[in-house]
């Protein structure tokens, strides 16, 4: 009894809720995150550090845009596409936004089915998410190609302030890299779910540890974060 109480002190004592709980969880001689596994806590802390990276990129973009004396190119017309002979402003970016939001929806449902141990549905939803992610990266590649052929470079562009190109390639490039890594991560975890690794408690290739369905939720945290970053990029870079 005393041994198991030592291993999991949070079972022995019910923790207070609300602000009192916050204060006592962070008090001395405590493990701060009571009912959160190390995997989930570490993913959150990684995402927090990633928030600062993207925060710095957006602050750098703001600084460049405010401090330039030359007019900033109008993103509404730069990212317009002519469909059926009609110029529609920002349409590609709008479609990319909807694709990414849809991928977040399927990811959230995959987490749910994972915890219900419905591994077929969970794996299919994860692969759907990966497919949406791949479509997003494909559309971004199309967008980059279009802008590069129109003469946008990190050091200049035909429409105005030179910093437009450098901030555009930096911010969307970093975000696209995150999406691509997410797609690879999704496919790896979806394969494990499909194979039933978390039902048979098969040991991992690198870690030799038994996994469980929480990895789907941890994976989901990363994926939703990628969507979250896009919300801010869409607002500040494309719409502002």
């Amino acid at each position, binding site marked *: 009894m005393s041994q198991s109480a030592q291993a999991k002190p949070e*079972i022995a004592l019910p923790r207070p809720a609300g602000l009192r709980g916050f204060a006592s969880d962070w008090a001395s001689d405590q493990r701060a995150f009571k*009912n959160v596994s190390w995997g989930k806590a570490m993913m959150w802390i990684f995402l927090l550090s990633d928030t600062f990276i993207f*925060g710095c990129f957006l602050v750098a973009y703001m600084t460049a845009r405010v401090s330039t004396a030359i007019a900033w190119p109008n993103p509404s017309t730069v990212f317009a596409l002519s469909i059926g002979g009609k110029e529609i402003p*920002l349409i590609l970016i709008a479609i990319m936004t909807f694709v990414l939001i849809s991928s977040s929806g399927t990811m959230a449902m995959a987490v749910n089915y994972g915890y219900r141990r419905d591994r077929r549905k969970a794996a299919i939803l994860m692969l759907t998410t990966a497919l949406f992610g791949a479509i997003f990266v494909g559309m971004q590649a199309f967008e980059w190609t279009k802008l590069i052929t129109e003469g946008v470079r990190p050091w200049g562009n035909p429409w105005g302030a030179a910093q437009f190109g450098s901030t555009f390639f930096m911010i969307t490039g970093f975000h696209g890299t995150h999406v691509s890594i997410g797609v690879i991560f999704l496919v790896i975890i979806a394969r494990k779910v499909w194979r039933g690794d978390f039902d048979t408690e098969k040991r991992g290739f690198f870690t030799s540890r038994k996994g469980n369905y929480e990895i789907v939720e941890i994976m989901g945290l990363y994926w939703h974060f990628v969507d979250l970053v896009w919300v801010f990029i869409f607002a500040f870079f494309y719409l502002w």
Partner: protein
Amino acid sequence: MEQPVTHSETQALTHTDHQQHPIKLYLVVWGLLFVLSVCSYMVDYLGFQHYLRWGLILLFMVLKAGLIVAIFMHMAWERLALVYAVILPPVLVLVFVALMTSEAHYTLFTRMTFFGTAQ
């Protein structure tokens, strides 16, 4: 004698730890995110300008971000110790934004004053 008691307690705890919510909730949030995205696209399509534009962009951005973090990332159901550890530090980025706004305006001022309007 105490062994089975602790075992069942452990099981009960790990069971309630899982984030289990009805699928309908996710579909509703998905729909809301779609509507909010359409709204923010409309801000550009209808050509709103200045404070109306910036205000609406920020409003829809904050609502979308809040829905994703609270529902999709399950932050609404986590203990405050984790919520504050993740949500409070990014607030400091706003201090950085304030610093760099001031700095950027000063850079613009020096460019206008000493280099005419170029560069």
